[in-house]
């Protein structure tokens, strides 16, 4: 009797032991190493770093392994660790114009300074399952290109900006630090810096669907991929004691500059507008989706009527975080029998009263 709510402690311990067992799997098969995960499942590691908001490939690889390949669970592990770390400083804006480029493509110019560089892309592969993947065959080494000492590739938006055909890139408001939703609560309306932060950590699938919806008429923005670039950039931090910025490391990022429909007003000539996406690691799907949603969320700036989900910042920002979303959806499996009991009791009472013929002036409760 009363077994249902007793013995929880032992049950949890046993369940977790079983989980650890299942995670490891067949003991006659060698365990995955972190090098294997970081090296051969690198896009999974990149996604965990991006949505976990922590650039640390080793830790992300550990999280992927611990989470049995469930990436949202891995992101969760990273987030729960990241949140305990002190925040020392805000870096200088990274200079993506000086990126060591691995891939860079533009859909708006056939050729352009710095060139088109396909890099390691799935684009144009035929999606046929390769029988070689069942074995561990030899893979030819990639060809390396010699780069000039300074491989400067100006951003497409700068090229358009020189002709004043695209809106400005905004100014950093003095020396003000960018907003940080991990250190102050989200309040509406938000600034673009905070929105971009939320989108950069937001769920890839959610942003993909929202970006897609803008292409299907729900907050249309007529986008062109000005460019997508992937590569390493230096991270610099200004040290007050020194009075200048020093490089503290480098990160791989994916940047997307979306060029969107033009606007004009009495004060300003018609010009293109911007949508921006920036993601840790290699993920152009996420960076492109982010840039579409960023542009859609700027509707007010261009006096566009906000009628679609992708244009509604409260809707987008309140639901883009997959750790919040998965937690609340999955909490429904927790016991609710106290509340359910309350509903059950009311329902029965209402049924009883329904069965009884109503009397004149009967005050029910």
């Amino acid at each position: 009797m009363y077994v249902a709510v007793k013995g929880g402690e032992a049950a949890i311990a046993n369940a977790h032991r079983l989980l650890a067992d299942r995670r490891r799997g067949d003991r006659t098969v060698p365990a995955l190493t972190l090098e294997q995960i970081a090296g051969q499942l690198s896009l999974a590691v990149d996604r965990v770093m991006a949505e976990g908001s922590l650039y640390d490939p080793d830790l992300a690889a550990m999280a992927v392994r611990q989470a049995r390949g469930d990436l949202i669970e891995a992101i969760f592990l990273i987030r729960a660790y990241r949140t305990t770390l002190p925040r020392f400083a805000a870096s200088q804006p990274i200079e993506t114009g000086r990126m060591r480029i691995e891939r860079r493509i533009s859909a708006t110019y056939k050729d352009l300074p710095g060139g088109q560089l396909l890099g390691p892309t799935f684009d144009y592969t035929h999606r046929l399952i390769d029988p070689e993947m069942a074995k561990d065959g030899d893979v030819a080494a990639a060809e390396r290109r010699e780069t000039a000492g300074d491989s400067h590739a100006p951003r497409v938006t700068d090229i358009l900006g020189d002709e004043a055909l695209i809106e400005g890139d905004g100014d950093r408001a003095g020396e003000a630090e960018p907003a940080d939703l991990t250190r102050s609560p989200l309040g509406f309306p938000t600034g673009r810096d905070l929105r971009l932060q939320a989108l950069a950590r937001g769920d890839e699938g959610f942003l993909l669907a929202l970006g897609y919806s803008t292409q299907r008429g729900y907050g249309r923005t007529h986008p062109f991929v000005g460019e997508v670039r992937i590569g390493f950039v230096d991270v610099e931090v200004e040290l007050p004691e020194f009075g200048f910025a020093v490089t503290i490391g480098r990160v791989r990022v994916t940047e997307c500059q979306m060029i969107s429909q033009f606007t004009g007003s009495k004060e300003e000539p018609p010009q293109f507008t911007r949508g921006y996406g920036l993601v840790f690691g290699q993920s152009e799907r996420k960076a492109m989706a982010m840039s579409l949603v960023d542009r859609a969320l700027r509707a007010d700036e261009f006096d566009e009527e906000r009628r679609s989900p992708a244009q509604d910042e409260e809707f987008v920002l309140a639901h883009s975080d997959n750790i919040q979303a998965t937690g609340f959806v999955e909490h429904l499996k927790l016991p609710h029998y106290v509340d359910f009991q309350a509903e059950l009791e009311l329902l029965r009472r209402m049924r009883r009263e329904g069965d009884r013929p109503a009397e004149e002036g009967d005050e029910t409760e």
Partner: protein
Amino acid sequence: MTGSLPAYNFAYLDEETKRMIRRAILKAVAIPGYQVPFASREMPMPYGWGTGGVQVTASIIGPDDVLKVIDQGSDDTTNAVSIRAFFANVANVAVTTKTAEATVIQTRHRIPETPLREGQTLVYQVPIPEPLRFLEPRETETRIMHALEEYGLMHVKLYEDIAKNGHIATTYAYPVKVEGRYVMDPSPIPKFDNPKMDDCPALQLFGAGREQRIYAIPPHTRIESLDFEDHPFRVQEFDRPCGLCGATGVYLDEIVTDDRGGRLYACSDTDYCEERRMAGHSGPAL
């Protein structure tokens, strides 16, 4: 990239975060019933599973505290076990299941039957802190409604309930007015527990992690459940005693005992039930 493996602080949160949360708690205590935004952190348990309560507890708990964690009134439900184990692990505090011995009680969906006393703190886990949320989905609107004390919409909702059902059809998370000012969501406790909040000698803190809000009821605060003169607030009544300890006037769980309609009604508050049975009480099911 990392030189060393992760290590965690006492009670998991770093001290800067605890200070930030304590500031939010102080503000919440100073403005009873007002929802104070705070920079909620990711916790090692999922959102919706008590992260708000855990953050509040982590910020107020000290090495000398004695912690009790309940879910649905019980110390034995899986989530309560998990949270209690978490604090035993990261804060190494003493834990108990006895309401009277605890200094901090974290709860989901219930207030213990044993009256709380001065010096105790009851920490509620809150899923949706905004009592007006399902009447008005936008935070920007509801904050204005609170600021202007514009609670007409809530009364209209309760009135429509009565017009349609003859009852106020809210049975849990039943809205209250705090010290005559803010309308507050008491978290999804059954309305049976609402009267226990009124003039309570213990401090009551509410943490909503995913929604980033903390609010509070200081000791001995006036808490009124919303109602109408001709439809006064009434709590649930059970027409039988606890099957195990014979208690009356307590909240009962309905436990299905077989597939022939058999039911056992037993105290939702398992500690209260055990104490009574230890004291020699017994119910009709034994």
